[in-house]
């Protein structure tokens, strides 16, 4: 699937640029994209290192397991293939909590830890996403946000009378997205496994 999307963007991009008579933008755009990719990864080093340290501490203190146990009924429904007491559950819960609070730079490292733990449980091909990973990413990309910090800041800059008035509509829209994400994940998994 990702092969198809990737190839499509590349081929259509180059063809359209050529057709519009500005083929020179392709090389520049490609190198700029590569630059951004490396920059993002480098920026992540500090954040990930820091949060991995904190997570290890939380784990050693037994806090991650306690938190995971708290929301166990929900997580066992969403992730039937992950053992109840597994470290992956703790990391998943931490990631989703950070997302809900709008703490983007804490959410990403927690999410990457969750992926590492889920990869340990991946009994299939290590290059292919497991069911639990697909569910986790469906939730992660559509997670409910209580505080959309960035856009509130922008509304403030441009003189909104009430910058936070969009919080309610945002929560509604994310809740709808998250519900559909969970259903779509189950539905596509069913279709995909039948297609094999």
């Amino acid at each position, binding site marked *: 699937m*990702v092969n198809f999307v*990737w190839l499509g*963007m*590349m081929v259509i*991009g*180059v063809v359209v*640029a050529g057709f*519009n008579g500005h083929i020179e933008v*392709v090389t*520049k*755009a490609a190198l700029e*994209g*590569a630059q951004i990719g490396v920059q*993002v990864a*480098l920026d*992540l*080093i*500090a954040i990930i*290192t820091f949060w*991995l340290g*904190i*997570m*290890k*501490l939380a784990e*050693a*203190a037994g*806090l991650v397991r306690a938190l995971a146990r708290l929301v166990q009924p929900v997580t066992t429904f969403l992730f039937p293939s992950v053992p109840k007491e597994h470290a992956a559950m703790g990391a998943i819960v931490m990631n989703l909590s950070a997302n809900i*609070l709008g*703490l983007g730079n804490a959410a*990403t490292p927690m*999410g*990457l830890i969750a992926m*590492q733990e889920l990869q340990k449980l991946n009994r299939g*091909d290590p*290059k292919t*996403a497991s069911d639990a*990973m*697909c569910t986790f990413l469906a939730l*992660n*990309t*559509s997670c409910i946000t*209580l505080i*959309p910090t*960035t*856009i509130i800041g922008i*509304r403030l800059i441009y003189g*909104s009378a009430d910058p936070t*008035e*969009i919080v309610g*509509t*945002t929560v509604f*829209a*994310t809740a*709808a*997205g998250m519900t559909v*994400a969970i259903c*779509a994940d189950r539905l*596509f*998994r069913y279709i*995909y496994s039948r297609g094999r």
Partner: protein
Amino acid sequence: MFGIVSDLSRWAIPVVLLLVPLIAAARKVNVFETFVEGAEAGFATAITTIPYLVAMLVAVSVFRASGALDYMVLLFTPVLSAVGMPAEVLPHAIMRPLSGGAALGIATDVVKTNGPDSFIGRLVSTMQGSSDTTFYVLTLYFGSVGISRYRYSIFSGLTADFTTLIASVYVCHKVFG
């Protein structure tokens, strides 16, 4: 309501940084050693994502710079205007899953041009706040553990994005319309 939520957000990380080491110490954990032990993997994890991020961002960048994205906007205009979506916010809707920076740029521009308290300004704010950069998140998360076969993940991600978009339009018409 927002005050409480906003305070919660501001306090969350400092409280974590206070409580986690304290509780660990109370349970006889060597706090410094344990932190370092965990942090060790940070560099490798971040570096592993480079090839995946470069691959995806190169494709997105070429697709956008070539003007192909603008054609996609033209293609989708009739469909989305049928559900009550103003043309001004369409580029944002299409850019959102692909590029976080570009979508934020568009949202900023729309808020600036139309005013934050106009219907369009409120709609684009809701759209920006309620969705994530699906392609980036998938590439980063899968890339960090070396997964290159995403199965149906892109489908479920985009289905959710589309739902969020329609829900944003619906709720903004109801609340602000």
